[in-house]
């Protein structure tokens, strides 16, 4: 029973955090977030698990395969994934 309680509390806390984040966002902040560049997202997201990869490590075709794989494995949103791998290909 204690397990369920702890799990429930954690879920509620995350739910409250979500609502809090939604409420606290200004239009300007959302616009700035939506306009993030691929380079910025590359720098922010890859290091959540591993070092930022060198664009020269693979060719564009390989990057498209890795891009699809990472979108699923790292739970990237579509817009994050597209911007990151478009940037990597452009820097390759």
């Amino acid at each position, binding site marked *: 029973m204690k397990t369920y309680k*702890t*799990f429930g509390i954690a879920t509620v806390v995350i739910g409250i*955090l979500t609502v809090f*984040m939604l409420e606290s966002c200004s239009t300007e902040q959302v616009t700035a977030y939506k306009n993030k560049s691929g380079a910025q997202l590359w720098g922010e997201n890859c*290091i*959540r698990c591993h*070092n930022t990869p060198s664009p020269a*490590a693979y060719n*564009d075709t390989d990057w498209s395969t890795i891009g699809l794989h990472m979108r699923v494995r790292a739970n990237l*949103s579509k817009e994050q994934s597209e911007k990151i791998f478009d940037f990597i290909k452009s820097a390759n």
Partner: protein
Amino acid sequence: MKKLILVIFLGLIGFGVKAQVNDFKSSKTQFMIRGYGHMGYENVTINGDKETTYNGGTFAPIFLFKHSDRLMVEAELEFQINEGSLEVGFEYANIMYILNDYMTIRGGKFLLPFGTFMERLHPSWVNRMPTKPLGFGHDGIAPSSGVGVELRGAFRVGTSTINYSVYNTNGPGIKTPDGVEPGEAGMLAFNNLIDNNNSRAFGGRLGILPFANNSTEFGVSFYTTDKAGDTGSIYENLGANLFALDFSFVKQLAGLGGIVDVKSQYNKSKVDNMIYTVEETPGEFENLNFDNNSNSFYAQLSYRPTMSGSEFISKLEFVTRYSTLRTPEGAGWEVNKKEYSFGLNYWISWRSLIKLNYQSITGEGGHDTLGDFDQKGLYLHWAIGL
């Protein structure tokens, strides 16, 4: 005339070269082998018994087949030398299809998003330590993979990112006194490739990256089944509930001159209670009756001075980890351990590093161990991502 023939000849060569170049135009169907591997040297003393050895290495190829912009197959094998013989592991193989911008479906054997360590962080070139934290891997309490189907995805909410996963798998089995490892009766066995009781496990994870810079992630996971034992056995109706909390913070901080990386995960496991009658010595039986609750925790901090003016120093990484594991008091597999680890890594490239690590694990119990447990280890590993 000779000039004309020469021009025609050169023209034909040019046309041929152009045709050849066109032949190499990439197709939509792609195949890649990636993966990782490591090798190293280990000097480990367990309860006074010292063992020094070169670690024969691990090679884990990951096969990626991209059939289209939406359809992909991933599979991983793991080859490693363990106690002088080659072991081949089938880590996962699954098909994934992107249904829409927010939903991807996977089917097959896949790494479970129970927390983040096993799904994202365990490969040797990603894991900053040469070992896993307590509670993961062999005799661990957290599931690492499952056979079934999963729906997952991610989306933006304001300036936050939410990611989610829900899955249905064959679920765990449970080790019993008449099994291969009677001393581990009551322990969940997660490598259930074929369902043993027509009852599935249901699980999921919800992750939130609340800040616009994506530096911080909180996650909560659950995994539940109402039957773990084999069909027809007295253990069939043993249920299990697991949950995990995870946290991650990774950011380059100018004030500290480098990247700070904090990772943490708490796992809790509760299996329905049962009396296990175990044959301690031939003809002598003992009833093991215990509260089947287990938990584990780890926290890891690493710092890499990437903004240092010295190229050598910028490639160094300092890392420390604390982890604990508690399994049921009174069980044949009772464990109460703590781990402290300290390491210094050197990054040769963005995907290859050398790890020098000192590890201390103390406590009680463990695999093939009764009473006090004291392990001190020095590890020198070289890991590479392919």
